[in-house]
């Protein structure tokens, strides 16, 4: 019995071994293949995953004569990987979506300055058509260009036109009107809540809070980098958010962008501040139950006729300072991918960054929310601060602010503590030396 069992085990072991050897052989063959032909350089790409970037990756893969290895992963994971690899000087990635981290990465010497490449390839990539304001404000650091803007999106107000019309409501112009409308459209027993909010700690909470804070006239920092959230505007922002939370789904503190979007698409919420990149999906019958019922507007201001400052985000592609590929080739891959034709094709996913496309009335016509996006920027949608301390302290800061909403801390106390978290870091990094 024992002997037989043992032999049986050995046979199984041999089988496993054969499998493994076979597997390794396959792998080695696969690994060796590119080097054997060696003609095609491999370009490594990393970014977070979202429809606009998926589209760019698809187009990038079509660039002739290269092999593209793309990693599209969630935002947190992408940031982690880039930081670990770049801090050790690894040449793992060639093209990276740096977005709001561009200045931080540039400061640390992880990005390649693009000016010489632009000078050389200005014609080839039609550089002058790319919105120079985005290049100057978002993709440059200390006078040098480190990135190519690939998309612009902002957060604006989504609302259920059918419900608003039925209740005789108009899209709110002020925060008070928003609260009133949300209250009017909340029917918790029917699982309909007035408003969606995105309040999960981290960038979700930050997006929403930034809007309220700035719209009430405050901001994260003043011009001397002093932290200024512990202010009257801060109190008003949190107070309004706490009030609105009464008319939001009960678990809204766990809502990130995706939960807010689903809530809107399932008809669970009647309005809310959402990202432009989600607008197209509202009319997609595959995922949405409210096709044709959602309209878009500029988010409410503090008072009638006031300004409203929602979040604006601009995406950038940068080239790693440690790339082992020919920088000219990599730059061409980026530039040709972001061509006019491609931007025209993808305008529904985000606002294009080429002037010839954004100014094209035909494109504006085709996607109704591009109008809202343009109005939104006009009304005062703005970028968030891009200093590294802002993102490094963000999770702790927003966790603390959340405690003001849950009632664990009084609102002024929450602001005071959040301010301290941010200030301590700024002090430590030597911002206030003089």
């Amino acid at each position, binding site marked *: 019995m024992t002997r037989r069992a043992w032999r049986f085990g050995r046979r199984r072991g041999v089988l496993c071994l054969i499998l*493994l050897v076979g597997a390794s052989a*396959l792998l080695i063959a696969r690994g060796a293949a590119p080097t054997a032909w060696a003609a095609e350089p491999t370009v490594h790409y990393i970014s977070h995953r*979202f429809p606009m970037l998926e589209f760019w990756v698809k187009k990038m893969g079509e660039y002739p004569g290269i092999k593209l290895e793309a990693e*599209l992963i969630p935002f947190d994971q992408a940031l982690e990987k880039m930081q670990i690899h770049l801090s050790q000087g690894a040449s793992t990635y060639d093209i990276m979506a740096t977005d709001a981290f561009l200045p931080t990465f540039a400061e640390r010497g992880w990005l390649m300055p693009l000016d010489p490449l632009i000078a050389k390839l200005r014609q080839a990539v039609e550089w002058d058509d790319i919105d120079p304001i985005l290049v100057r404000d978002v993709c440059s650091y200390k006078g040098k260009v480190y990135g190519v803007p690939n998309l612009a999106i902002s957060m604006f107000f989504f609302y259920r036109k059918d419900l608003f019309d039925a209740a005789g409501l108009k899209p709110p112009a002020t925060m008070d009107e928003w609260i009133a409308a949300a209250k009017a459209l909340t029917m918790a027993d029917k699982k309909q809540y007035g408003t969606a909010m995105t309040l999960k700690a981290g960038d979700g909470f930050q997006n929403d809070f930034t809007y309220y804070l700035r719209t009430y006239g405050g901001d994260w920092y003043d011009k001397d980098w002093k932290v200024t959230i512990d202010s009257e505007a801060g109190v008003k922002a949190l107070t309004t958010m706490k009030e609105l939370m009464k008319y939001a789904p009960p678990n809204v503190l766990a809502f990130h962008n995706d939960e807010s979007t*689903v809530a809107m698409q399932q008809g669970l919420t009647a309005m809310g501040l959402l990202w432009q*990149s989600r607008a197209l999906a509202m009319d997609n019958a595959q*995922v949405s139950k409210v096709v044709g019922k959602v309209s878009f507007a500029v988010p409410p201001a503090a008072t009638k006729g006031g300004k409203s400052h929602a979040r604006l985000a601009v995406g950038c592609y940068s080239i790693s300072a440690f790339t082992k590929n020919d920088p000219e080739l990599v730059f061409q891959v980026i530039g040709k991918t972001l061509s006019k034709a491609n931007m025209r094709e993808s305008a529904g996913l985000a606002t294009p960054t080429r002037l010839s496309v954004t100014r094209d009335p035909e494109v504006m016509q085709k996607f109704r929310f591009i109008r809202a996006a343009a109005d939104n920027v006009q009304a005062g949608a703005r970028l968030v601060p891009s200093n590294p301390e802002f993102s490094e302290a963000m999770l702790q800061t927003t966790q603390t602010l959340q405690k003001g909403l849950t009632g664990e801390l009084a609102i002024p106390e929450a602001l005071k503590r959040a301010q301290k978290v941010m200030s301590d870091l700024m002090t430590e990094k030597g911002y206030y030396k003089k």
Partner: protein
Amino acid sequence: MVNRSVGAPRVVLARALVYLALLAVVAVSLFPIYFALTTSLKQTRDAFTTPPTWIFTPTLEHHRFIWLETPFPRYLFNTLVITIGTVLLSIPLGCMAAYYLARYRSRPIQVLLFSLLAVRAFPRILLLVPFFLVARAAQLYDTHILIILIIAAFNQPFAIWLMRGFFLDVPRELPEAAMIDGCSSFQAFRRVVLPVVRPGVFTAALFTFLFAYNEFLYCLILTGSDAKPLSVAIAQYGAEKIEYWSWSAAGAVGILAPIVLFIAVMQRHLVKGLTFGTLKG
């Protein structure tokens, strides 16, 4: 007699309660998996609704998408290589070490056993950066062998503790008799002791298999497009688009299916193995 006439209805009632409790346990265990399965088969629009959609026309679109239009087959292949490699490396080493640690007793050995437990307790995320440094220096970043070595090393404490329990049950006389008959120490181990603890080896291999199959954190940072396993690939479809949720569900079903089969076939061995060893601490 009296006892029995009173007992019969009580026995029936008790039996009914036992079945009811079992049914509840089975339902609770299965429900999340059932939810993942149906979610992967629903149109995205119908997947996250209140009240839940019970009746729907199933669609294989999400499954088709992830298996045919993404490199999922390659990730599955990577997972298999990593898993099998880990078992083949970890189990022989672990068995041998456990055998030694069960045969001999001394204070240093007790200290060693305890430190092995401590290895298990160390927060693994802290080792990410040093691992990355080593991997880069050894040019092993994004290779199967790197992941296999790491998982096998982390699995050693568990494998050793588990196997040691089995070896403790083997009478000392067994290998000694074999050695008197002229076997070398290793031959005695391989020919005489190992066949006796075969169920234990099997159990340890199963746990190791699961451990490697499910490893996430190190694979996330230390693999790129070449060696990325399924567990990491599933977590890649973050949040931005709601279709991603359906894809994640389809991916979850994809990673679950082999495990369900595996457990269905192997559960007898799991129980038998553990029964045999009675897990001596």
